[in-house]
């Protein structure tokens, strides 16, 4: 009886997440051409061939990978930097720096608009300080091809998250190992880069993967702040999904399945990083 207790406790979670995973199989079948509701009954790879050969997909995929990579890189770098700055402060987790965690993405998107757009604050400052004559002279930083606005919004929101993951570990490490390195004659810089940072790396890499996966697959920010050409992958996938022609659905599901494939890769990477994190944590504690 006692043997089954954990499964009983887990049953509601398994039911909820299990239903989610199970329902994804539906989309997979549709992407393979099996969609009886639209009169499609034959399994085929032709939808995959069509989508994979389409330059729209290539552009969207490249744009989304780029947005995710730059956002995750800048967020982790910023989070590490701020954690290092706040390490010696009396109140390292000040509420102000954690505020963005509680801000909805749509609001952060609005921040990007009122700061970075051609009639935003920076454009007005450029007019006041450098005599810029019209809003159009200000570079396009929102809904632009370089994804400046999207990246700004993700970084704004994710730096505090990286800090929340890193700062506790960094504090524990600095009190012991970094101190030891300093006593043995390492410069502060050397101690940080050769001791503190490597010991925090596993936590940083799990955060990196989570941010990357989120920025790769989320809809709101690229929808509000992204370019129309190329469209970010989530926005393009949703457009395919919204097509009123049911016979177009398998194409949409190919987009979905490709995104899920990336998701499976993210999970595998995360599990590998997490294993390292728990292993190292034990080492730091003992």
């Amino acid at each position, binding site marked *: 009886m006692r043997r089954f*207790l*954990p*499964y009983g406790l*887990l049953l*509601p*979670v*398994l039911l*909820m*997440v299990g239903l*989610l*995973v199970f*329902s*994804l199989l*539906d*989309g997979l079948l549709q992407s393979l051409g099996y969609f009886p509701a639209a009169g499609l009954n034959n399994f085929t790879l032709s939808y995959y061939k069509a989508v994979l050969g389409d330059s729209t997909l290539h552009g969207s995929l490249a744009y989304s990978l780029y947005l995710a990579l730059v956002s995750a890189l800048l967020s982790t770098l910023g989070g590490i930097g*701020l954690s290092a*700055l706040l390490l010696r402060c009396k109140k390292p987790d000040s509420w*102000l720096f954690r505020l*963005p*965690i*509680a*801000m*909805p993405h*749509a*609001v952060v*998107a*609005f*921040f990007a*608009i*009122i700061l970075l757009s051609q009639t935003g*604050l920076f*454009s007005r*400052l450029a*007019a006041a300080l450098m005599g810029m004559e019209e*809003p159009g002279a200000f570079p396009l930083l929102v809904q632009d091809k370089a994804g400046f606005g999207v990246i700004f919004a993700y970084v*704004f*929101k994710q730096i505090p*998250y990286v800090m*929340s*993951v890193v700062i*506790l570990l960094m504090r524990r490490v600095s009190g012991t190992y970094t101190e030891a390195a300093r006593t043995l004659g390492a410069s502060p810089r050397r101690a940080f880069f050769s001791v503190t940072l490597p010991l925090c790396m596993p936590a940083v890499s799990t955060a990196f*993967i989570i941010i990357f*996966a989120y920025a790769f*697959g*989320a809809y*709101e920010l690229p*929808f*509000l702040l992204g370019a129309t050409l190329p469209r970010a992958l989530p926005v393009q*996938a949703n457009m395919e999904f919204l097509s009123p022609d049911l016979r177009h659905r398998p194409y*949409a599901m190919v*987009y*979905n*399945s490709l*995104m*899920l494939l*990336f*998701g499976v890769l*993210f*999970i595998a990477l995360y*599990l590998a990083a997490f294993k390292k994190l728990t292993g190292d944590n034990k080492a730091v504690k003992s």
Partner: protein
Amino acid sequence: MKKLLLFLCGLCILLPLGMLVLYAFAGRWPWPALFPESFSAARLYDTLDGSTLSVLLRSIGSSFLSALLSTLVAAPAARAIACYHFPGKRIIRALLLAPVLLPSTAYFVGLQTLFTRLGIIDTTLAVILSHAIVILPYGVWTLTDVMNSVGLGLEEQARSLGASPFSALATVTLPLLLPALVSVTALGFVISFGQYFLTLMIGGGRVRTFAMLAVPYIQGGDRQLSALYSLIFVGISAGIYSLFGGIMARHYKDAAAIGKGAM
């Protein structure tokens, strides 16, 4: 130098917040003026009518229900993961990563198919359930960390002194977990309250939440109303988060920071 950098970082957060207030009450604010030329609250009164307020209240209620449901489901799961060894534990942990690491746009489509099959698509119930699924992993992770540090020792002592399983749980473990349960529910509320796209897909535009009202203004470029909605949005989210999110940090030494993995 350090102080200056920290000051600049703080400014990065306070500056846009300050601009929200200015925009919300600005009358005319043409480019390139740095400050509004006039102030007006007329449109605010027009917008904040009874129907907006009722959407806001219902939205708060449904986000709270999502968070509560997620916490109630996550708590026993966290206990199982933290306190027992059993075959399949690693698979379950991997499964729990799905709502965090799978591209959300893709699995929202899966959820939509699921709720269509269950026949509850476009209902508030479906929206509450879907939000709970999205929140779930954060609850399980945080509560697993806390359960790990609380352990079963005290509860077993109570049992050996003659307490029934139920009263040992209710009088020993639950009070120890309460701060974490409150914090996790607050975090879940914040995540649910900010969801726009998921609500659109599952609610089909018929379930109106506060995010559904706010985003069209931001998308359409109406800065005054966007600012007003954003202010209310941030006020409620950040208010709940700072009131209840910090409870946990004060109660457990070295507990994982609440908001770990929060998006």
